[in-house]
């Protein structure tokens, strides 16, 4: 030993350099503890958390596709406006131009009686019946698309306002279907948020409890560090990293599970769409969401570990 009696102080290093050194050491210590000393237990814990995170993600996937399906099935909000049979093309075009000026209407498409007849003829069983008619009985039809974001009540109000127009014979607005679909989607979204909240809380508790057990199992090490002059932050830091690792691992497992789920569902969904004559494909979760999940889970894990670590390792007196 040198003759110096001064204790070792990092006086030639900046606080930032020391801070970095401490974080590097804590990071390495946390990785060694989790993956070097008990890898199986660590992976099992991450898997449990990963499956829990995959549940709300699965529901999110289903809801997204249900919303897309509802739009594909015509719920895409077009209101059919049937004019009186005696209405002329000129009257139909004038009315369409007037309706396009309304702020709650995004577009108005005109369908002539001839177009209507052609479409109807294509429907199996109608061809012969229509051929027997002397003249085309179909009226001019305006397909009115409400502005995007309009709720069911305002669309119903729009339909009511169209019904009272003099040239209009019938307004076909499948409001009940739309309302039911909106209600179902809203219920699903609410259930999703509740489930995500509950599972997020569960994750906090699981990570917190795992870290608590880890702290109990390392009482000797903690006492040695405290007696050697480690600050509560220094002692706590490896456990915070451990919490973040648990969360990150769980998030990555959840994303992997979702990838597998999407892959498994893609073919049956395509078959279902084909049976309805459509080409709709299963829409997977957005890349941004998939990238956010592991990061958010790591933050949750860190918070869970911090809640426990602060309570258990707050003091400087060895226990």
């Amino acid at each position, binding site marked *: 030993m040198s003759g110096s009696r001064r204790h070792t102080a990092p006086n030639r290093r900046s606080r930032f350099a020391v801070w970095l*050194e401490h974080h590097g050491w804590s990071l390495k210590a946390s990785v060694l503890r989790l993956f070097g000393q008990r890898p199986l237990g660590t992976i099992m814990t991450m898997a449990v958390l990963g499956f829990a995170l995959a549940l709300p993600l699965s529901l999110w996937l289903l809801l997204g596709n249900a919303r897309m399906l509802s739009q594909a099935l015509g719920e895409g909000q077009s209101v059919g406006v049937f004019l009186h049979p005696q209405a002329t093309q000129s009257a139909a075009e004038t009315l369409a131009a007037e309706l396009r000026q309304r702020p709650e209407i995004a577009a108005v498409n005109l369908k002539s009686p001839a177009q209507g007849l052609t479409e109807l003829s294509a429907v199996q069983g109608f061809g012969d019946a229509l051929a027997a008619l002397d003249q085309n009985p179909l009226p001019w039809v305006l397909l009115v698309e409400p502005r995007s974001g309009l709720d069911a009540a305002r669309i119903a109000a729009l339909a009511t306002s169209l019904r009272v127009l003099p040239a209009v014979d019938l307004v076909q607005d499948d409001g009940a279907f739309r309302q039911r679909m909106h209600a179902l989607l809203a219920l699903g979204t609410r259930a999703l948020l509740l489930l995500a909240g509950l599972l997020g809380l569960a994750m906090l508790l699981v990570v917190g409890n795992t870290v608590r057990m880890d702290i109990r199992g390392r009482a000797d090490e903690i006492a040695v560090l405290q007696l050697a002059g480690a600050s509560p932050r220094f002692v706590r830091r490896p456990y915070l990293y451990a919490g973040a690792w648990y969360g990150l691992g769980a998030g990555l497992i959840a994303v992997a599970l979702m990838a597998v789920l999407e892959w498994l569902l893609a073919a049956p969904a395509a078959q279902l769409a084909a049976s309805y004559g459509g080409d709709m494909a299963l829409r997977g979760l957005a890349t941004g969401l998939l990238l956010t999940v592991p990061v958010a889970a790591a933050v949750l894990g860190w918070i869970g570990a911090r809640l426990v670590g602060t309570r258990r390792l707050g003091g400087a007196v060895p226990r």
Partner: protein
Amino acid sequence: MIRFDQVSKRYADGRQALSEVSFEVAPGEMVFITGHSGAGKSTLLKLIALVERPSRGVLTLDGKNLGKVPPRGIPALRRRLGMVFQDHRLLLDRSVAANVELPLVIAGLTLAERQRRVRAALELVGLLQYEKQPPQRLSTGEQQRVGIARAIVARPEVLIADEPTGNLDPQLSTEIMQIFASFQQAGTTVLVASHDLTLLKRMKKRTVVLDHGHLVDDVPAEQVA
């Protein structure tokens, strides 16, 4: 300078561990604290290490009243101390070098500096060849020397040891004490709690004698026989 001024310690369970103990330890001095089991030796060291606080009286380290150090100030003060325990308190899941390295990590030294100092400390206690070994492969005496290397690696101002030779045979005990004496010669203040009177007589250092929490004798080095 460590100064005990009428220091008493009563634990929460009502046990009186120290009663109005007064003495001083000069910088660079080596002092043995002795007495029967329950005399208050460990409590006295715990007060210096800020594991316990005095119930009454004043304990100072270089003029700083240790009884009034706020919790957030404790780690910095402990970094001025080196501690050796009877049961080593080595971490069995890491190597000898990693155990010795801990105080240097806490102090925020670079990896290169830590490695240099760890090797120097292990060389000093004669265990450099075991630096990569886990502690459990070492004998009890060797483990105690690892504990000493950990205590001195950060060059503490004060080294305190609680029954460091309690589990060792006489020859090993003498070797350990000679290591402590070498630190004292390098300028470190050393306080050792021990009930091994034969060893104390052999070392011929100032000896403070406790009995049921009372300081009953303070024998200068030259009068130890």
